[in-house]
């Protein structure tokens, strides 16, 4: 397993956001985490990425415990995280945001190598290089956030609600990009409210309910689960 999460519990103040969550992601997989608002999806990703400190449990990346590492070291290990609010550097140009993405590789001659892949995925970013990141549309900002994460050369890419606040045409483009990214050998853990779309591209899925894993299985199993069909797919 590339990522193993075991008994992870995270609380804000006294409020438990996720409780005793265990998930695993194998190399080359796309794994989706679904669930309603407030189910703890974002907290799960934040806790893995080191942006929140879990109260209990373990996170192993490539066999090594990372739950007590600072967030920047987790990025350096090859685990990139695109948060829900993207956290771009809005006053800096698109080019600077991408360049900062390759900061970890600044001493390498082929520092900008992933840029080719980025422009192949999102050609419109090339036209926006000189523009300030804050002036991009929601969809373009999401593309830039994913691209900045790719510039860190991750082995695992974690995406939090990449389809949020984006016009429908671009949503397809983003989901398409995720499958392309996986094809280049990057494992993907994606959190989504759009369950139907994410099950289409995912190999396996976990469903969270009030901070716990309520269902786990292959994408097909989750899609066919009567509870999921009623509650999330509206069928």
């Amino acid at each position: 397993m590339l990522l193993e999460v075991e008994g992870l519990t995270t609380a804000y103040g006294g409020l438990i956001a996720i409780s005793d969550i265990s998930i695993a992601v194998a190399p080359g997989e796309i794994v989706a985490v679904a669930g309603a608002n407030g189910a703890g999806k974002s907290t799960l990703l934040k806790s893995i990425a080191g942006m929140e400190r879990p109260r209990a449990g373990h996170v192993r990346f490539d066999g090594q415990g990372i739950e007590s590492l600072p967030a920047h070291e987790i990025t350096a290990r090859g685990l990139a995280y695109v948060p829900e609010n993207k956290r771009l550097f809005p006053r800096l140009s698109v080019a600077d945001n991408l360049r900062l993405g390759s900061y970890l590789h600044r001493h390498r001659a082929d520092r900008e190598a992933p840029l080719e892949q980025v422009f192949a995925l999102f050609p419109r970013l090339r036209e926006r290089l000189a523009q300030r990141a804050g002036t991009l549309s929601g969809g373009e900002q999401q593309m830039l956030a994913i691209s900045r994460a790719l510039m860190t050369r991750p082995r695992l890419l974690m995406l939090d609600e990449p389809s949020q606040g984006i016009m429908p045409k671009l949503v397809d483009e983003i989901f398409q990009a995720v499958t392309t990214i996986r094809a280049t050998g990057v494992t993907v853990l994606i959190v989504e409210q759009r369950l139907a779309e994410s099950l289409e591209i995912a190999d396996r899925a976990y469903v969270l309910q009030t901070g716990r894993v309520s269902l786990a299985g292959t994408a097909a199993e989750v899609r066919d689960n009567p509870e999921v069909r009623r509650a999330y797919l509206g069928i």
Partner: protein
Amino acid sequence: MTTQALLQVLASGLLMGLLYALIAVGLSLIFGLMDVVNFAHGDFLMVAMYAAFGLWFFTGLDPLLAAPLVTGLLFVLGALAYLGVVRFAMRARSNAGMVQIFATFGLAITIQGLAQFLFTPDYRSIGQSWLGERTINLGGLFLPLPQVYGGVVSVLTFAALYLLMSRTDFGKALEATREDQGAVALVGIDRNRVFALGWGLGAALVGLAGAVLAIFYYVHPQVGGPFSTIAYVVVALGGFGSIFGALVAGVIVGLIEALATTILPPALKSIGIYSLYLAVVFLRPRGLFGRL
């Protein structure tokens, strides 16, 4: 006043203003980076002046050659101030702003107290140096060489700072950290390291200014006071966090001070700067180039 005399006043004001800009820019840099006002900024200047004086007094090293050493020393002092004091103040769960103010204020009092204890309150000055006491005749304007040197150092430093901020990875990391200090970890940047280096850089800049100032100004434990007050005016006028603003505002403050000194009785000479400060606060609180 003759044109010649006016030009003389303006030239002196310009040179002093460039030095004010160099004194102030580190304060602005640190504030822009992490929203912390360093109340020990003037005391960093004082330490730098004592360092330049000490090197001259004990080893005979001319302040011109001592400048890189003093700058390096202050870099270390600044980084240590962050790692040893400010870093902990930033962890305050509540009232963080106040905690930070008192932390740097406490640092200021500690540094001043140590200087009083170690160096006594006596006024000291570098007696003989390569540039000290000399003047240069520029087209009829007689300018003290140390101030000319200070102006040149300041302009070159601002140029270097501009290149550092716009062309280097460290500069981009600083920019990114001031944009969103929580997000830099997403690209693998350790914000604590950036903060420590930022404090080092801010202190190194005021250290360089101190090494210049020590050539023609008395050194004593309270010497930082008036200069840090001017630095706050410069930073407020230029815009908190703006590097370019500090340069422009430093020059404006230097010119106004020089003119006020000529027009007003000596006892009132500071009034020009402080009325300017009040005008900024009332009319344009974010300063000339501020982004608040």
